[in-house]
Each structure stands twice: as C-alpha cells, then as structure tokens.
C-alpha cells in the first residue's frame, strides 16, 4: 500500500478541478463567489516586530506573509563602493502548507525572493547611495520574506508586505561605524510603492489573485508589479500568452495596483 503524497494527489485532482472550475466560471463567478478581477480581503499590519527596523504582516484572503526589514553594517560590493546593499531572502515555511518541506530554500522560495527584490529595486524606492557610512562600510538592508500561510498567491502578499515593511522602516542611528540599535534618525521614506498583481489563465479567462486551488489548475501565470505610472517588474510563470493578453494584463495590473496602494496609504 503506497499512500499518496500531497503533491501527486494534487496532480490528479487538478485535472478534475479544472473541468469543474470552468463550468463554474462559465456562470460568471469563481468558487468563492468573486469576480474574475477581484482580490480577496486584504489586510496589512505594520510594525509587528521589535527586533527589526521595519516590518509588516500582510494577508490576502488566508495567505499570510511576514516581511522583516533589518539593517546591518556590511561591506559594499566592489563595483559600487559607495552604495548600500539590499538583500532579499524568501522562505516558504513548512508550517505554511502541507506542500512545503523543511530544508534550504527551493526554486520557489528563491523565485519569490528574486521577484520581490526586482520590484523594489526597479522601483528605485530606496536611496541606496544614502547608505554609505565610511570606507568599506555601508548600511545593508535585509528583507526577509516569510510565508506563514499559503492559500494561493503568496507573490502579491509578499510584495505588499515588503512595501509595507519599507513604509514602516526607520533608519537606524550609526555612530563610530556601528549601528546603535533602537535609536533612529528618521523614516526610510521609500519614494515609490511597488505593488504586484498576479493573475492566472484558466481556459480563456484571466483570474486575478488566484487561490491555491486555482493555481493548481492554471495554464498560465503572470505577475506584474507597478508603481502607479510604470511597470517595474514582470515574471511569467508557467504557460504562454499573446501580446494582446499581456497588454490586457498590464491594464488590470495598473488598476488593481492602484487600488491596493490606496489601502497601504490609508
């Protein structure tokens, strides 16, 4: 008797789900009653960690991601000796889903970290040049993206938490080449707020903010990060799409991105 692992059961079930999902979609809604371009409930809590200079816990539906933003004094990169350093790390914690196994970051956690990093770096919302301390010493900002509960779309939840953490971040006081913890010189003040919008295609339909179940049956996945006026990061996952589909997706991403940005600012 070979028990069926979670992963293999999902593969079998996904064939069945796609059929049923399509028949529900043809009646105009998704399993949870949402419109095709609607997000689940979004909540953001800022300042949830005293041990970090900035932090936020974001939830979209039941998906929860914690981002910590913490400074250290580090060596600059040799080709940018006067610039601070941004390092983004991602963890799909095993407690977050039966699908996540303990161990070093796998390709999914690495991809998540790199996509969040790309959105923030392209948006140029952190003035890394202001992080110079002295010869061979700069401020490094570590963003740790921790997925605590995975019910679909950890990407958008992570980007939201990361941007909220940056909004929450305070620059630490630096004296004698060292950080004086718990003393600050002011807010980080990110100059833009990147928000990502992830959508999947099932048949001919784009579904925004997929649940875990919808993600299992997707044919194509696409994440677009925007800053209000610009697209700052794109990541296509599985599948393929046409030019027109991409342009449509960009329009959706700007609209939803702006909505979510209002939640952050409010």
């Amino acid at each position, binding site marked *: 008797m070979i*028990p*069926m*692992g*979670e992963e293999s059961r999902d593969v079998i079930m996904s064939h069945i789900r796609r059929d049923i999902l399509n028949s529900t979609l043809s009646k105009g809604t998704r399993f949870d009653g949402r419109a095709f371009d609607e997000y689940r409930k979004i909540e953001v*809590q800022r300042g*949830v*960690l*005293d*041990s*970090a200079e900035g*932090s936020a*816990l974001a939830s979209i539906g*039941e998906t*929860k991601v*914690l981002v*910590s933003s*913490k*400074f*250290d004094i580090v060596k600059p990169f040799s080709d940018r000796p006067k610039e601070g350093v941004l390092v983004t*790390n991602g*963890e799909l*914690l*095993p*407690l*977050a*889903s*039966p699908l996540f*196994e*303990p161990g*070093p*970051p796998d390709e999914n956690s690495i991809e998540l970290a790199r996509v969040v990093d790309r959105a923030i770096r392209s948006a140029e919302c952190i003035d890394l040049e202001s992080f110079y301390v002295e010869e061979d010493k700069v401020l490094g900002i*570590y963003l*740790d993206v*921790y997925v*605590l*509960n*995975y*019910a679909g779309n950890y990407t958008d939840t992570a980007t939201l938490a990361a941007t909220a953490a940056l909004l929450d971040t305070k620059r630490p006081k630096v004296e004698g080449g060292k950080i004086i*913890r*718990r003393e600050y010189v002011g807010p980080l003040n990110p100059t833009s707020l990147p928000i990502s919008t992830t959508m999947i295609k099932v048949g001919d339909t784009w579904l925004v903010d997929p649940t875990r179940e919808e993600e299992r049956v997707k044919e194509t996945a696409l994440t677009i990060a925007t800053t209000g006026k610009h697209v700052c990061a794109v990541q296509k996952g599985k599948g393929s799409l046409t030019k027109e589909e991409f342009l449509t997706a960009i329009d959706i991403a700007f609209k939803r991105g702006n909505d979510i940005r209002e939640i952050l600012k409010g």
Partner: protein
Amino acid sequence: MSQSEGKVQLIIDGKRLDGRSPDDLRNLRIEAGVLGEADGSAFVQWGGNKIICGVYGPRECIPRHDINPYRAVIKCRYMMSPFASLEEHSRSGPSRRSTELSKVIREVFENLIIAERFPNTQIDIYIDVLQAEGGTRTASITAAAVALANAGIPMKDMVSAVAVGKAGNVLLLDLGKAEDNFGQSDMPVAISARDKRILLLQMDGLLTRDEIAEMLVMAERGCEKVNGRQADALKRFYEEGEEAKFRM
C-alpha cells in the same frame, strides 16, 4: 548561559530590571488556530518573544526509511529567524543550538502524543521564532502544546513550560534576556498539567539542592499559570467559532 554577575546588576532593591517581583511572569498572550493550512497552530507572545507554531499530521512518513510500523514518528523543527534578535541580522538555516532545541522539544511531546494510534505515519511540529527575548524554548513548548490540541492529535495530557533561575542571588521565575545572559543559573522546565510530571529539564550554572527544590516549586506554580493561559486561548478559539483575527 550564566556568567558571574560582576558587571550587570539584575536585582535592585528586590525588584527585577523590568519591575517584576521574583515570581511574576512576563506578559503572555496565546492565540490558537491562527494558520488555516496547518492542521493545528498557535502564536505565543511572551515578554519580547514572538513565536509561531504549526502542526501537521498524522501524515505520510517521508523519507520512508524513518517509518515505524508500530507508531507515528514525531518530528520537530525549531528555527530561529535571522531577524529575531534585537541585535544583528544573522544567517538563515539551522544552527547547533536550534538542532539541540528541536530534539529536546520533540522529546517533550514523545511523552504525550498517543502515537500508537497512527502507525506508519509522521507528525510534524514546526516552530519558528520570529522575535526572541530569552526563554524561546519554553515559549515554543507552550505554543506547540496548543497547536497539537488545536490539531486534534491525541495526547495524554497538556504541557506548559517556564524557565526558573537565579540572578543577584535571588531565585526567579521566567527569566528575561538579561537575566538569562548574565544571571547565575538558568533551568528551563516543562511540566504536564494533570500528572505534574517533568517533561523538559535542562540546567546550567551552580545551584544547591535546596535552591533546586525551591525552584521546582516555583516552576510548578508558573506552569499552572501558563496552562491556564493555554486553556483560555483554546476556549476562545472554539467559542468564537474561529472568527478571531490574528494580530501579531
């Protein structure tokens, strides 16, 4: 880790640095059922500690060579997040300390989980320390017990834990970070609720037999209080019909 206390005065006029008396617990908040995907979960905020625990199982045993045909295999992973310390950002991944703690915490629950009811399976206890301030292992055990109850995994008893110690020549309940780092002795204890059996016991420093006897009584009283909070957390979760919001 205790050092001889020359530099740091931990007791001033009989009061501890944070104003507590010797047998006071730090602020303790416990929430049950905070994560929807895990079979059971709990969040503990204890003093400056913020710890989340998720439990899965009994489920398929992977790797298969771990399998036990008579009982569920219990696995525990305690991890300290790189951002958990109030000081510098550390490296991700396991350390020697987290490996030891994973083991001793697992051994607590091996006493309690009725594993024979689920042969050929495994039960996973995942503990992630999001913020640390002394006493993470006792807070972790406290969280894991709530998460296991929330998961409906059969157990013979509940367990709670607290560290007792000595600093400034005073016996203390629930050591804070400074007391843990600079005090004379640290003794984390986990005690089962009904049977009052000791399920976790470690100690460092120098103590006389009488001091230990007194500290064990303090530990028992402390564990009773903590157990009351665990019960409250679980009652709130089931009475509110799972609508409680998770605030970190």
